[in-house]
């Protein structure tokens, strides 16, 4: 066996903090890996990169990246990032947080950031439940799924995140899984170049909670489900692209939507210039 001297990503990591906190097989580590790959591909200098998160398992991610990173309060990462981007538009701000943080607690913020087309790169790692607190259901838990707080099956309909974000006005929308690492890396690299609000959903695995409660014997079983049941359709009708683990419908992935429209910052600058001239 060849003992590695150092992982090629160590320079981008606070490697002294590894092994990280996430459970064996948790998809969040894969997203971190893909994010760092995308960063290397894009060639953006590290001083211009900022990672922001809220609270939850995924929200621990920025703490492992060797860049400026902020672990903010629950659901408020978007508000924090909006202020930072307006104060310093040169920054590449990535917001990497979980479905609970971004869409349950922070649902209102993300909706309006997309509407205003704030130039942020949002990566939402969707594990379909509240992993950190023991696996309760939330707005992304598929209908019928068993969780700690829906033992007889979730009676609610879940959010379809790409559909929702496109409707709210996002400039770029895509969805991959923790298994589709190459496509995910390309999408993250692309989101760095998108002017405006970009949104990437990553369907992830949470072996001890959502996985265990919904018939996946281990982490690999849920990854294998992704391998067998995902279909890539970049032109999908997003209305019908909700996620289900019932096995009767494919999970639709893709680089769904990219349309440039003026960002909040463009319009803000224009107004400032106009007002200055008028005076």
């Amino acid at each position, binding site marked *: *066996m*060849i*003992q*590695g*001297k150092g*992982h*090629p*990503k*160590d*320079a981008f*990591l606070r*490697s002294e903090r*590894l*092994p*990280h906190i*996430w*459970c*064996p*097989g*948790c*998809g*969040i*580590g*894969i997203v*971190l*890996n*893909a994010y760092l*790959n995308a960063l*290397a*591909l894009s060639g953006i200098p590290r001083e211009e990169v900022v990672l922001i998160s809220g609270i939850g398992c995924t929200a621990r991610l920025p703490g492992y990246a060797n860049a400026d990173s902020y672990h903010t309060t629950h659901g408020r990462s978007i508000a924090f990032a909006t202020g930072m981007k307006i104060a310093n538009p040169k920054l590449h701000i990535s917001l990497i947080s979980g479905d609970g943080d971004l869409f349950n607690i922070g649902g209102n913020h993300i909706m309006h950031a997309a509407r205003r087309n704030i130039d942020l790169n949002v990566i939402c790692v969707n594990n379909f439940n509240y992993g950190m607190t023991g696996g309760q259901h939330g707005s992304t838990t598929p209908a019928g799924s068993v969780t700690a707080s829906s033992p007889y099956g979730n009676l609610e309909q879940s959010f379809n995140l790409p559909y929702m974000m496109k409707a709210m006005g996002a400039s770029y929308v895509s969805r991959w899984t923790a*298994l589709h*690492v*190459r496509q995910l*890396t390309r999408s993250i690299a692309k989101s760095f170049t998108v002017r405006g609000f970009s949104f990437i959903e990553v369907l992830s695995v949470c072996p001890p909670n959502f996985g265990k409660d919904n018939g996946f014997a*281990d*982490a*690999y079983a849920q*990854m*294998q489900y992704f391998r067998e049941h995902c279909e890539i359709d970049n032109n999908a009708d997003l209305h019908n692209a909700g996620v289900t683990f019932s096995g009767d419908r494919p999970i639709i992935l893709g680089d769904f939507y990219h349309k440039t429209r003026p960002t909040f910052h463009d319009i803000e600058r224009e107004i400032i210039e106009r007002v200055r001239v008028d005076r």
Partner: protein
Amino acid sequence: MAVIGFSRIRPMMYQDQITRNPVNRKHFVIPKGTVHFIPERCKACTYCWHFCPKDMLEESSAINAMGYHPPAVKEGMEDSCIACGMCETVCPEFAIYIEEANDRERAH
């Protein structure tokens, strides 16, 4: 920094079978890689050995400080790695990586 497996066009292969054979295949080279392990980081999620297209990795009998069995290269398959980078990219723990060798084998 080099990022493995993104830029080069290669014949599509799965478990040693060429699934799509480009007409200009003789111009392609099959890269070779060496697998490096950082076993103390591994949590034995099983992804690297399940998703390696060459099926050349396996759970070892070694045990790390956290109590997990990290992967190892299967006996006799030391030269099988095609540096596709799948194990490296899918590992959630930054516990495995590939170094691509310079002397590449010509595909025949």
